[in-house]
């Protein structure tokens, strides 16, 4: 479904990704793990069209994403939960969610999806008319996830969804991710909570210094000593 082929990406003069390749198949839950600054976020941004690869190609359902404008990705069915609970701080919670359903196919089902989201995160229903900027850190994170789901994507990319969430919620969110995935949504997960991520994922890639250095099922990866020592502490 998603095919990343040998991309090189960077900021100004600084190359961050070096020949990164991986794929995500329909219905799969794939995790991307790696230390701080390895280039995980950059990879997601490249897929989203926010950072153009210097070279290489990215295919989504056979369509070359490098040729599509960035705002088309949502329409194609890719959604992303940005790092650090980035939401529209000046808009209310409700407006944020409504905007999540921007692509035409999602807008049709807006009311229904909205209900689903309120069930998933009741706190958001309570804060409906609060400006997103005044939410607590964790509440923002919920809003960011919910907003991405509002677009009813085929591929959901999450950049550290557990970031700043209380333990109880982390469990809930991982359960929810699994549930969504089992319902058929393809998921690419970037996560620092490595153990949880590996438990969840069908397959994982390990990225270090901008290069893919390992891949396999969770058991396989957990058997690698370098993964254990570097990520599990």
């Amino acid at each position, binding site marked *: 479904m998603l095919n990343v082929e040998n991309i090189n990406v960077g900021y100004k003069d600084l190359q961050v990704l070096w020949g990164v390749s991986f794929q995500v198949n329909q219905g799969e839950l794939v995790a991307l793990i790696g230390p*701080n600054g390895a280039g995980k976020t950059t990879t997601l941004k490249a897929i989203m069209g926010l950072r153009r690869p210097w070279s290489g190609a990215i295919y989504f359902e056979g369509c070359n994403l490098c040729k599509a404008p960035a705002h088309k990705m949502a329409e194609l069915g890719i959604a992303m939960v940005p*790092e650090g609970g980035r939401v529209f701080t000046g808009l209310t919670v409700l407006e944020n969610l409504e905007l999540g359903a921007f692509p035409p196919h999602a807008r049709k089902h807006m009311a229904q999806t909205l209900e689903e989201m309120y069930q998933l995160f009741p706190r958001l229903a309570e804060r409906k008319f609060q400006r997103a900027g005044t939410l607590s850190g964790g509440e923002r994170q919920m809003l960011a996830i919910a907003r991405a789901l509002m677009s009813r994507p085929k591929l959901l990319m999450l950049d550290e969804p557990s970031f*700043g969430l*209380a333990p109880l919620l982390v469990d809930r969110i991982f359960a929810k991710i699994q549930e969504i995935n089992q319902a058929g949504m393809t998921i690419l997960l970037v996560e620092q909570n*490595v153990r949880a991520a590996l438990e969840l994922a069908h397959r994982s890639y390990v990225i270090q210094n901008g290069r893919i250095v390992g891949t396999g099922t969770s058991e396989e990866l957990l058997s690698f000593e370098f993964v254990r020592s570097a*990520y599990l*502490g």
Partner: protein
Amino acid sequence: MPLLKVEGLSKSFGGLQAVSGVSFQVAEGEILGLIGPNGSGKTTVLNLITGFLQPNAGAIWFCDENVVNLPRHQICRRGIARTFQLTKPFLNITALENVLVGRMYGRQPAPSRKAAEEESLALLERVGLGDKAHSLVKDLSLMQRKKVELARALAAKPKLLLLDEIMAGLNPAEVDDAMHLIREIRSWNITLIVVEHIVKAILGLCDRVVVLNMGEKIAEGAPQEIVHDPHVIEVYLGKVYA
């Protein structure tokens, strides 16, 4: 004598009672954990202590002085420094200069710029950003920015340091490093209040933990007691840790 004593602290936003009647103390040399579900008022408490918000009621005694209504910079000069959950670095200057601001103001401003630079550089090294000292902060990643903020707060030579989720987004191995660093900070005679959601860190670091829920203090005690407190498990942890 406690270093910090918070009494009956309350804060509401419009109709929302974000903090209500919270009291606790921090003894010198202690590491106090402040935990609670998302939106329970932890950051708000830190904001109240550092003068970013004015409480509706309550008092905050720091070194036997009520610091409520003191301007923020005065609070810092008394010896309280902090980091921000949503980072607020000085984006268009270098990491080193960020830290320099802390070093040249703060509680004990450095006598000369040269000395300040040396100390700041050392602090950056210590948090693991030595190689980025001369990068503009806007070119740094979120984690790196958090480290800059930590170094910057340390540079202000606080007696009390408030850390707001500096470990969010770290992987377990990195959390270990961070815990190590925090212990070292304590050894520099700095008292800490740590807000974290990473239970492992809370357990491993804190002498005492205060738990907030919906703005109220629902538990206080040693970490091991807290993780077994059924109320805490119900509203926050979800399961028994440790």
